[in-house]
């Protein structure tokens, strides 16, 4: 027991070990640990940023969706209005056309009626004359046909 020169040997060995630890052991390990630490904190920050961005995107999405919905509603309303307008226009155009056609038909009808009447009138006159001629040829009995002639004349 007691202290002897072993102490100096131990001090030298100790110094060498400490030097080795300081040079070759401690720095790489602490460096790796610090690097991991920064990576983890960066990762956490990125995650937080991601969450925030997600919330922002969610809000944006909602806004865009709302706008789109409004636009769609507008378009539908406009389309509906336009549709009604077109139907109305078509209806009035059809009405006008119908009116026009009806008026044309009416005029033609009237014209034809007038023509027919004219033709009939001419034919009646001819028939009357012919009838009269035939009656005269056979027997002219003024008395007997007076009523007939009167009637005929009244009808014209």
């Amino acid at each position, binding site marked *: *027991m*007691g*202290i*002897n*020169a*072993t*102490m*100096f*040997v*131990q*001090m030298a*060995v*100790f*110094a060498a*070990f*400490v030097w*080795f*630890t*300081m040079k*070759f*052991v*401690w*720095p*790489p*390990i*602490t*460096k*790796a*640990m610090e*690097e*991991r630490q920064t*990576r983890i904190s960066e990762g956490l920050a990125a995650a937080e940023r991601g969450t925030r961005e997600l919330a922002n995107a969610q809000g944006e999405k909602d806004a865009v969706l709302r706008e789109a919905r409004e636009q769609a509603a507008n378009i539908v309303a406009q389309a509906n209005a336009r549709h009604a307008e077109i139907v109305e226009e078509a209806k009035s155009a059809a009405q006008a056309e119908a009116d026009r056609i009806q008026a044309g038909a009416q005029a033609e009808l009237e014209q034809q009626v007038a023509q027919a009447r004219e033709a009939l009138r001419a034919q009646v006159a001819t028939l009357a004359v012919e009838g009269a001629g035939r009656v005269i040829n056979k027997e002219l009995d003024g008395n007997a046909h007076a009523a007939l002639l009167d009637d005929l004349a009244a009808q014209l």
Partner: protein
Amino acid sequence: MATEAGAVSPAGYITHHLQHWTVGEGFWTVNVDTVLYSTVLGVFFLFFFRMAAKTATADVPGKLQNFVEILVDFVDNSVKESFHGKDKLIAPLALTIFVWVFLWNFMDLIPVDLLPRLATWVGSIFFGADPHHVYHRVVPSADMSATFGLSMSVFLLIFVYGFRGKGAIKFSKEFLFHPFDHFLFVPFNLVLNIVEYLAKPVSLSLRLFGNLYAGELVFILIALFTLQSTEVSALTVGLGIGQFVAGLAWALFHILVITLQAFVFMTLTIVYLSMAYEDH
């Protein structure tokens, strides 16, 4: 256990166990066993730590790296708690002290006779040594020279850090005018400070030495249970069981002691160095 059953007296056994394998004379003796075991343990420690450091990655660490990182983190926290300057030496120093002293102390848990017997065998067969004169102590921290080797290194560093942290003038001033700031008290302060400074390495090394020497001695005493048993008898079996139980209990308790002593040595080293470095 005994070399020649019955022929070994307990006193002889104990004294044989407490003899160092030495080279040299007087003060200039070197305890070869202490140097050998502490150096082998230190190389063992540095080999594994260097391996971990070489492959250290910021990605998912392996098992070895994890283990080393736990220790490094633990030591780093201890250093940061008391030492506030920027320094490259103190943390590796603390790590070396903690792991190295722990390994020294751990040698105490290896059965007391195992390595000395092995050494006796190797010494007598390969080197033709007299088996009775092969001395072998495997616990470096139970050698005062080893513990003083550490504490004296710390002692020198206390001055290095004192000069670096406070400057030579301020450090010397503190030596002369602290704790009583009056020139009449200078001699008194000087004596007080010398005692205070000397107490640091002495208490540091004696604490470690005392604990581990006592621990080793208790293991040797436990080994005495069956030392003189020559035949298988009820008594021998009973003593054997007693030895096993006592050895187990002491070893379990000692796990605590060896860790604690390594931790205490490291912590006090950090505290002493930061006290020297920083203003009070």
